[in-house]
């Protein structure tokens, strides 16, 4: 087993990977940029290497600097986390070439699955149902327009090298096709250096359902059931759950088998996720393979009791999977809410800044994967994800109730978060009935704002806070602990 690994990431995921490494007796090395000198992942690591300016291209995306940091710290393997370089085949290749181990799939597998049309062809050949559309990418608008007629409207234009909604367009009518196609090609060219696009039929009200898979380097494959991730804002998942309210045991088994067929077709090794769309008539269609640890992996860990990061590290070290398919017996219902530093009252604008007060919820069945602390200043340079709040409960209604309590208890001051918004989503009758689909938020919560009905309590609270003489964190540290006692501390016994 490795003695030391380097984590090529930041924030909550870097901290989460370190936690498992520590349990396994593996030392950890962190990397950080100028903006992250006091970040939690730096403080939690056994050692940390400064690798450059805040700009991601000069730090968390700088392949040579990261490999150099791994060499300098004598790390034997690199865990890429999610985002940044996690699905970059050139990075995986560079790690392999430098004699280090990449904790993830082989670079060739990442490259093949990263080309979306290549992945579609691969799946079609191995009998995995794919979304109707084209299987080759093109830059020729006229040829694409001809193909569009065959695919039918509405349709999606997608970048072959794509991801994150870049180079993607929804086209409702044939007359809008040419303009949308041209702008998708130029956007894809700017974002990925490759403007080629392909076409996919747009399904009506699909659910996003993905299957977690594990594969070792000895040809053993298992899946760990599904996660439903239909609650999305701007193509970004914000609430995920498992099991999906839409799957029957039979459908789950067929989707699991399809995911394993997909993984085998790609020669997959390590942890991965096969994403599907589930149509209104319960037919599932291949979307793409994510060749990394997913943001939402904790809910699978909660219901299965397995540690996916431990599995990843063991597989990367060449071990055989100790789990068999029949060992995977999920129990209960888990939900994840992604805590973002953004302000729902202000058009979901990013909300960076100093955290003045932080008291996350506790209690049975609550898991909190967190990359921040009280006093930390959230930088403006990176993704606004601050933490992930997960719950496990006996069944779906109990899990929803537990999550609503946990969100209401997620006290964070100084910057704004999306917790009240997610609370409203979980409280909606549509969500309670499990009627979720990928356009759920734009259709039902497009113009959401918090109800002002309790403002009188906030006013009361403002006065009580003045009376209690709370100091800002900066003031209380500079004044030291020897300030005169507040009226509160000198008051007599207190009873209700």
């Amino acid at each position, binding site marked *: 087993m490795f003695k030391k690994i380097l984590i090529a990431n930041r924030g909550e995921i870097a901290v989460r990977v370190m936690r498992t490494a520590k349990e396994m007796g593996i030392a950890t090395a962190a990397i950080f940029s100028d903006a992250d000198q006091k970040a939690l992942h730096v403080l939690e690591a056994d050692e940390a290497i400064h690798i450059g300016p805040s700009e991601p291209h000069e730090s968390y995306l700088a392949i040579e600097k990261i490999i150099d940091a791994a060499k300098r710290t004598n790390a034997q393997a690199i865990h890429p986390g999610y985002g940044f370089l996690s699905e970059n085949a050139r990075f995986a290749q560079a790690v392999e070439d430098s004699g280090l181990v990449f904790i993830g799939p082989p670079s060739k597998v990442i490259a093949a699955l990263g080309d979306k049309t290549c992945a579609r062809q691969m799946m079609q050949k191995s009998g995995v149902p794919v979304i109707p559309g084209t299987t080759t990418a093109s830059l020729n608008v006229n040829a694409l327009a001809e193909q569009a007629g065959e695919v039918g409207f509405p349709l999606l234009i997608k970048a072959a090298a794509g991801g994150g909604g870049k180079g993607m367009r929804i086209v409702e009518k044939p007359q809008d096709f040419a303009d949308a196609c041209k702008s998708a090609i130029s956007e894809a060219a700017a974002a990925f250096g490759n403007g080629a696009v392909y076409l996919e039929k747009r399904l009506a009200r699909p659910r996003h359902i993905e299957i977690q898979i594990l594969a070792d380097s000895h040809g053993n494959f298992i899946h760990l059931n599904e996660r439903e991730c239909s609650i999305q804002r701007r193509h970004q998942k914000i609430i995920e759950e498992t099991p999906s309210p839409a799957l029957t045991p039979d459908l789950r088994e067929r989707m699991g088998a399809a995911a394993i067929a997909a993984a085998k077709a790609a020669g997959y090794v390590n942890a991965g996720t096969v994403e599907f769309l589930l149509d209104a008539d319960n037919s599932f269609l291949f979307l793409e393979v994510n060749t990394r640890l997913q943001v939402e992996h904790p809910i699978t860990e909660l219901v299965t009791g397995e540690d996916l990061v431990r599995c990843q590290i063991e597989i990367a070290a060449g071990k055989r999977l100790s789990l068999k398919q029949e060992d995977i017996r999920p129990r209960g219902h888990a939900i994840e809410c992604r805590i973002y530093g953004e302000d729902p009252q202000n058009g979901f604008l990013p909300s960076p800044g100093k955290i003045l007060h932080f008291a996350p919820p506790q209690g049975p069945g609550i898991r909190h994967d967190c990359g921040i602390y009280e006093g930390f200043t959230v930088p403006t340079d990176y993704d606004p994800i601050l933490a992930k709040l997960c719950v496990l409960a006996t069944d779906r209604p109990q899990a929803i109730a537990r999550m609503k309590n946990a969100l209401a*208890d*997620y006290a964070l001051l100084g910057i704004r978060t999306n917790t009240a918004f997610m609370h409203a989503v979980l409280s909606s009758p549509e969500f309670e009935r499990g009627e979720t689909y990928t356009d759920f938020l734009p259709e039902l919560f497009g113009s959401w704002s918090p109800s002002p009905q309790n403002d009188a309590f906030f006013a*009361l*609270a*403002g006065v009580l806070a003045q009376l209690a003489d709370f100091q800002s964190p900066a003031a209380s540290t500079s004044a030291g602990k020897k300030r005169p006692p507040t009226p509160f501390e000198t008051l007599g016994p207190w009873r209700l």
Partner: protein
Amino acid sequence: MEYPLNINGKDFLVELEDKGENLCQVQVDGRQMQVRWLAAGNGLIFAQVQENGKTRSLKIHAAKQGEAFEIFIDGLARTVTDAKLSRRKAAGSAQAQDTITPSIPSTVSRIVVEKGQIVEKGQPVIVLSAMKMETTLCAPYSGEVTAVNVNPGDRVGPGQILVEIEKASTS
């Protein structure tokens, strides 16, 4: 004691009569409440509010932010300011709305106009990016672009005037 406060642009007058032993009589927004409260460490207050014969408990998290308090109750965070202070601030920010400046530290993605160009009110002028999200700042009024003070890739902050526009005299 009277406390004029402001939350999200709305004024509230809180009248509080201290009854001793952490008990007070409070009038706010036309509502009468009897409140018993306890500060449980820096930043946390428990309060029991009796209103119309009903009692509910509030768990209040609070932190001082400059002259204002950041307050968290039941999953929602708000800023509570002194009403007099917030009126002065509002006057200041009305002026700020007339300038092209970011609300948070950002990086310049694209500049959509050039010097000498005539722009209409509401026309996109500059695209900024912060925390991987793009925001577009638009012309606050119609006029001529007299200066573009930044370049794509520049890191910019609140208060910094990115693009200057001379107001058209007839609009």
